[in-house]
């Protein structure tokens, strides 16, 4: 642990093994909820996930704020001198907490580059599958990060809310610039472009409410208003932890 601008900073680089990858869930996210996954998909996914340990460098950085600096109102959250327009849906859920942890998770750029290489050399099928595997893995990394957070807060009598990310439920994606100010430069090697795109792409940022009364809910797909989301279309994935 280190202190940055009064916030507690925790970093971790966990190990991920191919067995940690939930293949069944992945197939559901590809759309195959009935179990009839084509052989060419199965073959390629099996091969690709063997490269997870060597080509994926999972990392996260957590920044826990002091309770005294966090104030909520109905649609925003003020942390020291930064006001986040978290908007009503997310603010309502965060308000059960007394402070927050910001986080950034990433899996590095190697897997992403592999996907790009396949795509650029004309194999869009492989490129697409690799891209989605990488997305799935970074979600898994964020799940693990939440477990580490549980350990950190367990001795303090705190619980936590779900994780919420800028870009969801009316919270503007551009507020990631404010979020990044709670970390030393380039947390997990992630940089943010002017348009609030994180690089490497397979990265997630967000906030989690912490405190004795913080409430965690089952994932609520219905919160999001993304009309054509392929995750939403697939009823099997509605309870999964996608962002």
């Amino acid at each position, binding site marked *: 642990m280190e202190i940055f601008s009064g916030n507690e900073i925790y970093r971790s680089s966990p190990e991920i093994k191919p067995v940690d990858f939930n293949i069944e869930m992945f197939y559901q996210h*590809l*759309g*195959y909820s009935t179990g009839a996954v*084509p*052989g*060419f*998909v199965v073959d390629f996914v099996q091969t690709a996930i063997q490269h997870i340990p060597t080509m994926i460098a999972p990392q996260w950085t957590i920044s826990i704020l002091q309770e005294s600096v966090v104030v909520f109102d109905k649609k925003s959250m003020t942390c020291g001198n930064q006001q986040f327009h978290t908007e009503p849906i997310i603010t309502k859920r965060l308000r059960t907490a007394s402070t927050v942890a910001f986080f950034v998770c990433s899996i590095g750029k190697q897997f992403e580059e592999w*996907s*790009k290489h396949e*795509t650029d050399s*004309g194999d*869009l*099928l492989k*490129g*697409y*599958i690799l*891209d989605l595997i990488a997305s799935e893995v970074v979600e898994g990394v964020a799940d693990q990060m939440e477990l580490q957070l549980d350990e950190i807060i367990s001795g303090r009598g705190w619980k936590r809310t779900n994780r919420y990310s800028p*870009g969801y439920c009316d919270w*503007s*994606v*551009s507020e990631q610039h404010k979020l990044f100010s709670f970390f030393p430069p380039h947390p997990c090697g992630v940089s943010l*472009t*002017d*348009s*609030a*795109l994180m*690089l490497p*792409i397979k990265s997630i940022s967000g906030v989690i409410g912490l405190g004795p009364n913080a409430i965690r809910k089952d994932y609520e797909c219905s919160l999001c208003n*993304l*009309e*054509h*989301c392929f995750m939403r*279309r697939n009823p099997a994935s509605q309870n999964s932890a996608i962002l």
Partner: protein
Amino acid sequence: MDDILSLLCTCVERGKVNRKSPHPADLRDHDGADELTKKAVEMGIAPQTILQDGLIRGMHTVGERFRNKQIFVPDMLMSARAMVSGMEHLKPFYISNAIQTKGTMIIGTVKGDLHDIGKKIVAMMITGAGWNVVDLGTDVPTDKFIQALKEHPNAVVGLSALLTTTMLNMEQTVAEIKKMSSTTKVIIGGAPVTKEFALKIGADAYSPDPQGAVEFLNALPARTN
């Protein structure tokens, strides 16, 4: 003749690339789109007919099945592989003008955004519908779209974005395109894009999926490149 074209169409629909390919299992050791297109050419069937009644017809069904959630992106991309393997045999006929494309689509991901795959899937399906596609890549500034339009004045333009921040850059690109040529059609897409946003920024269409883009293009009056 109809027989071989129907077989070709089935190979595209089912993603049967060539004789060697093991997928789908029930077509193992059968000719794929590769061999069948070659045979069709050798039989003297007009290249335009092979393209239209074999490959494009197959891809049309694929697009519809995807839209109806009967198949998913990997199946669609396997079919595209089959189509591309057939197209290889038709390449010389594009050069000799024995095959006419339906028109040109210039496509790119707008400035500030590096997302590529969704746009590439759309480009692939548009190629499969018989259009020539000029893919400008990602992080494409307005100038580059304008330049490409000067080279292909009758082209339709497709813009892609995956973040709400970069989606806003579509507005300027659409405005500049329309300023240069008010008749140029622009279609936009990508996860955060909506029909309302398309209307607001003066784009001609929005589609959440590749099939919608194909339908939009095919409904336009015939054009040259």
